[in-house]
């Protein structure tokens, strides 16, 4: 298969690295969560790609079809999406509380506030 034929995986790798970079490099707590979401989205695409069977149709039994895509990874990723939503919700809730407690959502400013007793 040509390099281009695996373009889904290139997208996965790109999103994964981009998301991971945002999580590590940004000081803003909201942006970190956005990065985390991009990172997780890459994994969703990875699973969905794995489940696709070439020439296969949606996994609903019909007379004209013999090849079906594998539904299991899709179902797994539904669960992972739910987990991701829960994580995002909790993360954002924590950011709101941090904003109330410190008055800022920049990591370096919070660190500076913690230096002072």
């Amino acid at each position, binding site marked *: 298969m040509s390099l281009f034929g695996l373009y889904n995986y290139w997208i996965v790798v790109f999103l994964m690295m981009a998301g991971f970079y945002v999580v590590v490099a940004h000081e803003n707590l909201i942006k*970190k969560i956005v990065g985390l979401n991009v*990172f997780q989205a890459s994994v969703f695409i990875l699973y969905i790609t*794995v489940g696709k069977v070439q020439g296969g149709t949606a996994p609903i039994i019909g007379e004209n079809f013999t090849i079906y895509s594998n539904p299991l990874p899709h179902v797994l990723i539904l669960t992972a999406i739910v*987990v991701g939503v829960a*994580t995002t919700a909790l993360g954002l809730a*924590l950011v709101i*509380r941090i904003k109330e407690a410190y008055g800022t959502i920049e990591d370096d400013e919070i660190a500076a506030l913690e230096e002072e007793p």
Partner: protein
Amino acid sequence: MTEHLAALQVVIPLLCAPICMLVRYRDWSWSVALFGSWSCLAISWLLLQQVMTSGVISYHMGNWVPPIGIEYRIDEINAFVLLIVSAIGAIVTPYARESVRAEFGVNRVYMFYTSYMLCLCGLLGVTITGDAFNLFVFLEISSLSSYVLIAMGKDRRALKAAYQYLILGTIGATFIVIGIGLLYAETGTLNMADLANKLSKNPINKTIGTAFGFLFVGISLKLALFPLHLWLPNAYTFAPSVVSAFLAATATKVAVYVLLRFLFTIFDIKISFGVLPLESVLLALSIVAMFVASVVAIFQPNIKRMLAYSSVAQIGYVILGISFININGLAAGIIHLFNHALIKGGMFLAVGCLFYKIASVNIDKLAGIGRRMPLTMAAFVVGGLGLIGVPLTAGFISKWYLIIGALDRGLWWAAVLILLSSLLAVIYIWRVVEVAYLKPSPDGNNHIEDAPPSMLIPTWVLIGSSIYFGINTDLTVGVAKQAARQLLGGG
């Protein structure tokens, strides 16, 4: 009834969580949590007995036959970890009543018990399941609820600690899902036993290697293997007392179990220690953890943070045992899993008693506290002796087997390093002892005002059992050796 014990182990705390949420009148939610945690303990005890007498239990969730359906598979090692987790849960809950009421206010306690039950459910689920993706889901249940529990700390830094843990924990969990996904792509199965079977037949290729790398890093983040431990000190320091004790005694232990499961059951030793020079990586990281974390612990002004760094060091001992890949080393790792849970759980509970009375955990506030709270401080000191590894404590048994494991492997210098690093523990425990017993109280106040019995008794149950298991080692060593033999594939 008995054939459904495996499912009940997870279902009972899962059901108790929403009930805690609904029962908001005073601390009735506490009674629900008490019921939940003690039933879990009873179930895990029965499961362990069943495994020891009649071998591996395989429970098919909803009667779907594996590998299609989700299987709960219980052998010696996870029966033992289930017992550790549920025993800590059962002992911590009675303690939580006073402590949580004091730290949260009566009207908010139900929130604590809801998250606490979910966390227990997640930890037990991770341990009991035989399905790789199910493991991820339970891991996230336990992680999400522990972020909430940590954020409940009074200090505003608890929020920051919980956020940091959330980011790192989610990265770790996502790495684990990537690994599981790649394994699924390669083998087409998620059932652990089936995975092990198919992986042993497949030749090692890049997909399997990559999956292994992602899983190893992800799990190491969760178990706070040095240098991926950065989330741990803040999380344990600023969490409410009960949460520190519960998480220190269970969360990292369950992560170590997951590592064992992946290294030895799913990938066999040939892949685990063949793709990467993992043996030397684990050996090096664990020894660095033992020394660096212990030295950092010596300089901490806050006792909880000191104990947190000590936990990183103690995880080093567990991983060191695993890196020997022989019966005694592996058994030492598993024994220390249990012993450290008792010791560190007990010590964090003792620190919780201090916090309950004097509202501070800074060492300079503890002058003369040994005379004012004799039972609490005595528990702390006995726990500290266990951390050091003094004979007749459980810590001694762990280190004994660890050293035998090192010598079996011909690594005499590792045995020397184990002894040297124990001396560092002497220093950080002594700092507390010196302040608490040898310095006079600042205001000359010497009358005894110990923590209430409902907090002291659970503390002493944990500390007392760390002494008991230092003298009577039949249960721990017996189960651990059998589990180690099974992991190494010797039957």
